[in-house]
């Protein structure tokens, strides 16, 4: 026999960002709780609004499943003495199972007799066990917890009520002064408190109280509302998923409504209008079919359509004030020359141990110049990159970015263009922040890529120099993301320079500014191992097997080469001769470690044909190696060595008794290993 279970936690308004995941968590934790208690149950449905998290579990068995099992104890010869007396081990076993030795019987397993007992535990009634849901409620975790009143409980927001029903019966427990019962709260203004008879009445009872508890249904109501406004007015309303998700978790009963703003504001950059509407007001912007903005917006009210014009007018007033502010800032900013803004950067501290933004910009310029030099860029690129580096932060002191920090770079690009900067320079001012997140694209232009890397390298190096090093979840300057950004850019732009060379260039400039008191060598080591972890991570994301990552990480070449080599190994790992090829090459590398190093090979000391053959292969390889830097070609060059290496080892003892012969053989191994390792740390590749 079974009944449905309903659990609803009533809260003061939760932060929208926590609602969905908390709802899922409640479903999972209630399921896990029932599973642990050995109570069978059917489907699990979860619900949420800003003011409640709920779960309905269908067909929950009215009792725990009985436990009927056989427990195995010690072997007979240990359980009983020769005269058939029970041993301590047997007594202990029976007691441990809650029985006596009278219950023991023997059963043969693989020819040996073992003591056994039959256990039967009658399952308890579910109703008696469910008050443990209190602990389930308290076990939910949230991104941010708070305390309230005199309570010691920490929770996402204060708990106001709990509905807990098994069938039609209340499950007796209380959480944070809330006694579980049948009563829930309807919509704050349109509904009232109401009793729930049983789980099946939950959704509809609350709907009558203007609460739509199913987030998918609410979402569909919002989408339908948007559609209706689109059709009625011939508008296009692009649906931003994250905005929709947020808005959906801000309302219990959604009604879409529109408002308008003065057409003059359309002269503001689109990003400014969209940020004002979306980020600050949680409005959906409205567009024409061709994608241009219209002077309207959509907001989702938490309520019905009563007095909706009044709500619309109120929202229009708020947006009007915001846009008037933005318009004022835009006009003021246009009056300010870039040079004035740059001067203001002298007054802004980036970090007290690192100095001002102006100092940082000067360093970015120097690092950009060093990088451009290392990469043999043209004078044109050098001068564009230098100007881009010089002005890359100027928009931080514009009024618009002060008011809308999320527009940094975007406003910089617009203003730079308006103020007559070259197109590449303007674009780079925005692109130097890219990639802004793991999913964002890298700068499209060389200039943007140069300044982006210089800025990020400067941040990482300066932070490391003063001891701001990410640990665990602590990474206030997002150094990991920035290092990952550098790696992404270098890989995607296929840069023919190593990241180590760029790191040294940055270290030189940071130390020249007397930042921190570490020496260059120590810094280079710290930052290199920090990068190694980022590179590893990025290769993992690209689906490279972990052992192959290990094999390419030690490469001293460029990041593109590393990535390419990894891809080649991934491509060949299923080849029939892959295993043998790797083994042959590894054997060479492993034994070469015994060499003293630095010796020349003397072919006169060879004692067999296989030695000569392998040496000839080596000479050929050495000639071919530098002719290509394509990883695939190099793999092929190494792969053809396989038979020669195998024959060599079949016929040759490298560690020969005669010292001169031994050293000569080791020298061959070492020369060969040198080339193999230039390709990859082959012994790290796992072959089965």
């Amino acid at each position: 026999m079974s009944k449905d279970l309903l659990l609803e936690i009533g809260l003061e308004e939760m932060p929208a960002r926590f609602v969905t995941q908390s709802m899922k968590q409640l479903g999972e934790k209630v399921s896990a709780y029932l599973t642990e208690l050995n109570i069978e149950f059917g489907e699990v449905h979860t619900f949420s609004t800003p003011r409640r998290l709920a779960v309905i579990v269908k067909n929950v068995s009215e009792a725990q499943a009985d436990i009927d099992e056989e427990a195995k104890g010690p072997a007979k010869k240990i359980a009983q003495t020769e005269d058939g007396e029970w041993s301590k081990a047997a007594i202990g076993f029976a007691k441990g199972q809650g029985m006596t030795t009278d219950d023991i019987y023997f059963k043969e397993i693989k020819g040996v007799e073992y003591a056994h007992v039959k256990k039967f535990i009658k399952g308890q009634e579910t109703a008696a066990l469910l008050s443990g849901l209190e602990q389930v409620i308290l076990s939910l975790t949230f991104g941010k917890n708070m305390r309230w009143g005199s309570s010691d409980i920490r929770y996402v927001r204060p708990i106001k009520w709990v509905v807990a029903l098994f069938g039609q019966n209340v499950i007796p427990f209380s959480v944070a002064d809330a006694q579980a019962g049948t009563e829930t709260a309807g919509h704050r203004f349109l509904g009232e408190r109401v009793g729930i008879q049983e789980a099946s009445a939950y959704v509809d009872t609350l709907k009558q109280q203007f609460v739509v508890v199913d987030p998918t249904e609410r979402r569909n109501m919002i989408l339908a509302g948007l559609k209706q406004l689109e059709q009625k007015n011939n508008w296009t309303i692009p649906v931003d998923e994250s905005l929709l998700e947020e808005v959906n978790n801000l309302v219990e009963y959604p009604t879409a409504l529109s408002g308008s703003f003065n057409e003059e504001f359309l002269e503001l950059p689109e990003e400014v209008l969209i940020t004002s509407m979306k980020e600050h007001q949680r409005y959906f912007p409205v567009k024409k079919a061709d994608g241009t903005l219209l002077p309207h917006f959509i907001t989702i009210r938490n309520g019905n359509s009563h007095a909706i014009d009044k709500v619309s007018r109120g929202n229009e007033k708020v947006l009007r004030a915001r846009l008037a502010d933005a318009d004022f800032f835009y006009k003021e900013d246009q009056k300010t020359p870039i040079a004035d803004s740059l001067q203001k950067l002298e007054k802004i501290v980036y970090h007290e141990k690192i100095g001002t933004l102006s100092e940082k910009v000067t360093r970015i310029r120097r690092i950009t110049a060093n990088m451009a030099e290392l990469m043999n860029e043209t004078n044109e690129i050098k001068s564009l990159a230098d100007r881009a580096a010089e002005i890359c932060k100027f928009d931080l002191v514009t009024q618009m970015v002060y008011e809308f920090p999320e527009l940094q770079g975007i406003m910089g690009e617009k203003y730079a263009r308006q103020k007559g900067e070259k197109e590449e320079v303007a674009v780079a001012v925005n692109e130097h922040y890219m990639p802004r997140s793991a999913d964002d694209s890298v700068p499209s232009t060389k200039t943007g890529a140069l300044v982006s890397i210089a800025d990020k390298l400067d941040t990482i190096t300066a932070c490391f120099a003063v001891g701001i090093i990410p640990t665990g979840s602590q990474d206030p300057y997002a150094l990991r993301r920035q290092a990952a950004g550098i790696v992404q850019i270098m890989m995607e732009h296929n840069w023919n320079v190593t990241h180590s060379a760029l790191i040294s260039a940055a270290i030189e400039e940071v130390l020249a500014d007397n930042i921190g008191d570490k020496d260059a060598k120590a810094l280079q080591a710290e930052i290199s191992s920090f990068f190694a972890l980022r590179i590893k991570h990025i290769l993992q994301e690209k689906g490279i097997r972990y052992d192959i990552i290990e094999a390419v990480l030690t490469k001293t070449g460029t990041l593109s080469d590393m990535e390419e080599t990894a891809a080649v190994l991934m491509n060949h790992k299923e080849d029939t001769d892959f295993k043998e090829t790797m083994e042959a090459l590894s054997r060479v590398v492993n034994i070469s470690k015994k060499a003293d190093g630095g010796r020349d090979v003397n072919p006169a000391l060879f004692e067999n044909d296989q030695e000569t053959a392998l040496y000839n292969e080596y000479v050929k390889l050495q000639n071919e190696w530098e002719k290509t830097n394509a990883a695939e070609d190099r793999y092929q060059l190494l792969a053809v060595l396989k038979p020669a290496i195998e024959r060599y080892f079949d016929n040759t003892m490298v560690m020969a008794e005669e010292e001169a012969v031994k050293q000569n053989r080791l020298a061959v191994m070492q020369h060969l290993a040198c080339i193999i390792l230039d390709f990859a740390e082959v012994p790290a590749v796992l072959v089965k």
Partner: protein
Amino acid sequence: MNIQEMILTLQKHWSDQGCILMQAYDVEKGAGTMSPYTFLRAIGPEPWNVAYVEPSRRPADGRYGDNPNRLYQHHQFQVIMKPSPDNIQELYLDSLKSLGIDPLEHDIRFVEDNWENPSLGCAGLGWEVWLDGMEITQFTYFQQVGGLECKPVSVEITYGIERLASYIQDKENVFELEWTNGFTVHDIFYQPEFEHSKYTFETSDPDMLFNLFGVYEKEAKRQMDEGLVHPAYDYVLKCSHVFNVLDARGAISVTERTAYIGRMRNLARQVAKTFYEEREKLGFPILNRKGDAAHE
């Protein structure tokens, strides 16, 4: 409803909830939170329910009376209830109704907003309350004040009076708001707005102010050593206001800025700690009063 009636209505409403009606505290400050009626009284176990209007000075927001939305000095209506009552959201919403705001004709929402004031070592969780998309109130459960954990937790409700009034009176310009019959905000505040802006940005004497900061800081410490929390805190507030003027003036250089904030934070933490100790010495008198109905 004019501003005077709004204030009277809110006072009546919160007085009915058992709040002591206080007057504005007489030292300059940037927000109602900085009044000792909030900052100090949120510390420790003693119950505390108050409501008061706090004129709040934000020198950097001075606009010579030209800007329709920004003021050198605006007014906050501040409510503190400790411990936070269970029905505090309902009490708050009732206050809006008493101001003539019918929730059925508006869109009222509680949107997450966590508040932090590092220079006072304060942190709280709560919401900004939206009325048809406009933020009209900050609603905060204090978690930490002056670096001390709040236990029990106080709830702070801060109404932006001019904001709310511009909605209630449907005015676009703050200076057109009616304060009371026949008097607008312009009539009362335009001249001080202009003069304080001119003072802040043009005629103030940074050297004198820097000097004052040092003097006030020293005096705050000296009084703290004497265990005199309130005089000490007055000087912390003075430091804070002087700092705000200097900052608005652009007289504080980058490196100095962080250092000044750090100095104020240390003072605030010290005051908070001393206040707790002094109340403890007194045996937390409000907590231990017998038969006190007003403070459950």
